[in-house]
């Protein structure tokens, strides 16, 4: 079976690239999306589904909260864990429907730790 990729959703191209580099260096396969709407399209055509979504909350077109609300409407996506970039010290993950969170700015070690903790293989 093909390994599950990680989906990185952020509107900032440089940050998307930085995260992608770090995760690829650590041996993950990475796919990207630039906003919530784009991420839903990527999800819809992913096979297998991503092992984890790393989600920025503030994005144009469809933000993080909007993406999570859409995901909840599709039971086939329910199993995909989502880790959010949160501005608040401890966001209400249950309310958001997310599995974990990291706070920007996050350093390499902390990011890799959260990813390895939540990503499905």
């Amino acid at each position: 079976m093909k390994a599950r990729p990680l989906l990185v959703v952020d509107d900032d191209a440089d940050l998307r690239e930085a995260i992608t580099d770090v995760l690829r260096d650590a041996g993950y396969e990475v796919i990207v999306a630039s906003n919530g709407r784009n991420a839903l399209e990527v999800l819809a055509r992913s096979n297998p589904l991503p092992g984890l979504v790393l989600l920025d909350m503030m994005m144009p077109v469809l933000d993080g909260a909007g993406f999570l609300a859409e995901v909840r409407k599709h039971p086939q996506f329910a199993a995909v864990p989502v880790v959010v970039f949160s501005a608040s010290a401890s966001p209400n993950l249950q309310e958001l429907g997310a599995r974990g969170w990291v706070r920007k700015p996050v350093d390499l070690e902390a990011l890799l730790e959260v990813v390895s903790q939540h990503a499905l293989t």
Partner: protein
Amino acid sequence: MKPLRALVVEDDPEDFMLVEHELRRGGFAPEMLRVETQEEMREALRGRDWDVILSDFRLPVFSAPEALRVLHETGLDIPLLIVSGTVGEQEGLEMMRAGARDYFPKDRIARLAAAVTRELAEAEARRARVRAEMERALLARVGEVLTAPMDFEQWLARLVRLPIPTLADCCAIFLCEEGDSLRLAALAHEKSEAERLEHEPRTRRSPEASIGPSHVLRTGQPELIADVAERQAQLTQDPAHQRFVSALGLRSALYVPLRGHPGALGVLALGTLGRRRLGREDLVMAQELARRVSLVLDNALLFQEMQDAVRLRDDFLTVAAHELRTPLTTLQLQLGALTQRARRDSAAPDFSERLERCQRQVRRLGTLVEALLDVSRLSSGQMLLQPERVDLGELVAEVVDRHAAEAQGARCEVRLEARPGLYGQWDRLRVDQAVSSLLSNALKFGSGQPVEVRVTGAGGVARVEVGDRGIGIPPEQLERIFERFERAVSSRSYGGLGLGLYLARRVAEAHGGHVWAQARPGGGAAFTLELPLESAEVHA
């Protein structure tokens, strides 16, 4: 000649003329109406106002006791005097017990005018007493509503109910809104169905209006319209006024401006129905009412403005935080990845060391950004905590660990001595932030000397003491350094925003603790952070 409106209950036209003659002789210019039956008397009382009622004792189909009953049914306070050739002392006294003010057999009629004068004065005094009592009670109730904590709209709705029915039959508050419009913010009416009248709550202020709310707003002067029907033609000029009057069927109306710090706030409107009319004395009362309402309205608006400003600032800070953190994250991750590769590929010997230095600076930038955002948020408002069970010794050890590079850079040996098992319900990130700023501070000002960190607990409190052997703090600066943007030394020789200790103090206070600084014997400074321990630990 004094005007006098006298209602005369009398069947004999000659006696009627005799009464008129006596009144004229006594200095009155009477305006009189003669009635002979119960129905006629009721009709006369409904139709207009009277200063006095003069009643014969016995009429063919009516009598003074019945006339008194009719008067009492109306609830009006009009003096009634018996004027009759047939009334004896016994009957006269009985009538006075029943509520008549005096009685005059025809042989004593010469004293009638003097009695009427006296009765008018007494009736006036009674009315003034009732009026004063009504005003006192109304203002007291207004005071109660104005100071009660409630929602703004709820508060307006309660307020407009108060003047009814004592002062007026209906009451409304119009408020100025953006773009020159007036909003009917609250309306109360004696007949509650009128409050549910279909109405468009907003109207444009009319610049041409010569009466009504728009006019009052423009001139800032109160306005009494004693007879609405007479000024019907002018009503069309002010849509707000037109609606208020025609929908409610008003007899008279009174408009008083509401004024606050930005100028005109709106208009308080009072109205009466039926025969009742508002007069000069109501104007004085309405102005007093408007003054009190304006005061509270002004405060409510200021509060609302302040809340809007705070919301705006919070929105800005959320966006600013996101915008500042995003590039920092990119830099931090790229530098992290580069450092790893440099180590792995054994690049030029000082390459990875330089990258690490870059990383340290990015982290520092991150800390400064967070501190700045924190301070903006804290400048108005409370620090919100997310408490959890925290082991203080463990947390401090982590902080010391994280500052290893910084300590090395400052050539400080950090000596940690921590008592284990000190637990409290604290916000981990905030306490971490407070301890970090104390340690950073010691490393910055005590470079080249050892820094001692002790974690102790006693008497229900835990303490983190950070002592350095640095330049010390002059005694007069010991408190000031905890203020925002304050520092004991010039900002040229030492970097930083001067926010760390301020934040540490806010963190300590939010937890119900303290933070303070002391000069150390033998030089240097000691900072102590004190936090309340978990209650079970007090006895442990």
